[in-house]
């Protein structure tokens, strides 16, 4: 079973635990629990629900009511723990704050203690009712005792919480294994990405994502350092410019070009740092060199009608005479 399935199944179990706990609480306060045979003015069975039991003068009935109150409290604790575990599952499924999600899922494991306690108190209530001669459990349907239905509810809750704990333990073991694995393999991750190796576990991918971002940040820092160095060099050039003038005009123009390029690249860097969207031009690996026209004037590309050879020309007039460099065909081009 995959790790994601473990968390998903634990979520489903938590939903069931919460639902069953709410059903248990509703059943406890909605239906009557016990009946007593009265032999005085009215010779019939008097039926008690929880509220009546709490208000009763009889000590035995009061004790049972107190035990049912304890069941109420433990079912409430199950609901709250289940909700905490659900929040944990929500955080876990977000992929961020994984440790926090894991801790909350682990807190949900306390549900097992609460469910054991509920089951124990339920059993004692069941036996208490059976022990008393005058008190009998209420039969909602023939031969089906009400306290027994509630006992079944708490048994199901106990099973669900036990399975939940097992799933969470498996999940925890998996997480620990993955953390250890990622720690060992951190140095090899960049190679894996280069070779496009298939990544099997989804949570491993998360770790890898983080690693990639870390590398990116490192690269950015390196770029920043480089740009700083360029700035320093520029300052030095400017200072030296002030002191000595180069006698050659070409050199001057070359320096100006370099300056312009640096200013441009700086501006580009600033834009890219501000926005998440990457400028298209920055990521061109190689622009085909033949796209750039080396001729001066207005560069045009012309196709020979005979040999279909494509060659660049320089346009100076409206009508120009052209000769194909391959087949030697002559002609004029009108625009």
């Amino acid at each position, binding site marked *: 079973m995959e790790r994601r399935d473990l968390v998903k199944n634990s*979520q489903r179990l938590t939903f069931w635990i*919460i639902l069953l706990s*709410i059903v248990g*609480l*509703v059943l406890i306060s*909605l*239906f*009557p629990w016990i*009946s007593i045979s*009265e032999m*005085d*003015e*009215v010779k*019939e069975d*008097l*039926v008690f*629900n*929880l*509220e*009546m039991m709490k*208000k*009763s*003068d009889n000590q035995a*009935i009061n004790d049972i009511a107190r035990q049912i109150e304890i069941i109420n409290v433990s079912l409430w604790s199950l*609901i*709250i723990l289940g*909700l905490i575990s*659900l929040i944990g*599952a*929500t955080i876990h*499924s*977000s*992929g*961020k704050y994984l440790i926090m999600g894991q801790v909350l899922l682990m807190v949900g494991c306390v549900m097992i203690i609460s469910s054991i306690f509920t089951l124990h108190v339920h059993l004692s209530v069941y036996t208490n009712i059976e022990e008393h001669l*005058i008190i009998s459990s209420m039969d909602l349907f023939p031969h089906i005792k009400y306290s027994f239905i509630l006992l079944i509810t708490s048994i199901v809750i106990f099973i669900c919480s036990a399975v939940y704990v097992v799933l969470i333990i498996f999940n925890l073991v998996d997480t620990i294994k993955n953390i250890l694995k990622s720690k060992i393999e951190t140095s090899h991750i960049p190679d894996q990405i280069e070779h496009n190796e298939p*990544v099997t576990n*989804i949570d491993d*991918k998360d770790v890898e*994502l983080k690693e990639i*971002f870390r590398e*990116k940040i490192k690269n950015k820092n390196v770029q920043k350092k480089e740009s700083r160095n360029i700035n320093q060099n520029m300052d030095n050039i400017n200072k030296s410019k002030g002191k000595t003038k180069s006698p050659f005009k070409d050199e001057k123009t070359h320096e100006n070009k370099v300056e312009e390029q640096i200013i441009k690249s700086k501006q580009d860097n600033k834009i890219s740092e501000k926005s*998440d*969207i*990457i400028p298209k031009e*920055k*990521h*061109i*690996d190689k*622009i*085909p060199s033949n*796209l750039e026209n080396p001729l001066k004037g207005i560069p045009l*590309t*012309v*196709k020979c*009608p005979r040999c279909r050879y*494509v060659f660049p020309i320089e346009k100076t007039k409206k009508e120009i005479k052209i000769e194909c460099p391959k087949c030697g065909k002559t*002609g*004029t*081009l*009108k625009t």
Partner: protein
Amino acid sequence: MKDTKEDSEFTFYSEVKSSRKMQKEKILDESFKKAERSKGIKAEDKKGITKKQPFLKLGIFFIIIAVIALVIINFLPWFFIRYDAEYGTIQEFYYKDFKNKDDSYYQSLENIFDSQCTNYTINSNNFIGISKDDFFKGPKISSNAFYVLILSGLIFTIISIIDYLRHYSKIIISIIHSLFATTGVVIGTFIILSNLKFLSVHFIIFFNKAFIETSGATNIRFIFFAPLFLIIISIAIVLISVITININLRELDKKRKSRITSLDK
């Protein structure tokens, strides 16, 4: 003439130009996509940057539903009773704090809730499970629970407004959303359970009919209006809160999966 014909065949190589342009665009697009993939940005996520975040309405729902519930508690009758006494059939609406229109109640009615017969061996003086006190305490408990719901709704609405203006991370907002939904589940369940004792009276009256009739009232019929509506409202709160938690869970799971698939491509 022949020459001129041939001359006219020399044309701009626009097709080549356009194909080159297309090639360039293709290279640009591919490299751009590559860069995106390496950064882990997906097309959908990019849309999300410019797209306005949806305003979460759970808080407003909590406030509206709590206000309706408070109106029900204060203005709807808590119960309607109809019974046959020695002097005829009595039917009356009672509001919170056990008050009716005339601000008075009959002795027989008091006997139904708190019986004066103590000549039984084991039973208490209470036959239907609720007493007059429950009509004083019950509305107070329910009102306080709904005040807490209004407060949590207000806090959540303020958080939603701040998020609408400042665009926080979707993950954080989803977690906060789930937290408030959890509060809704707890409060809703509490209100359901605190009002269930009124509904359980129907079962008790059915089983303890003979004992209740000793109080002097026969053929008793109860309808608990306010508790019934409060339970319905609370069930709605619990259901919507659970659905919200579930939706958030699925959304976060989807988002996480989409992030990972963008890495795979």
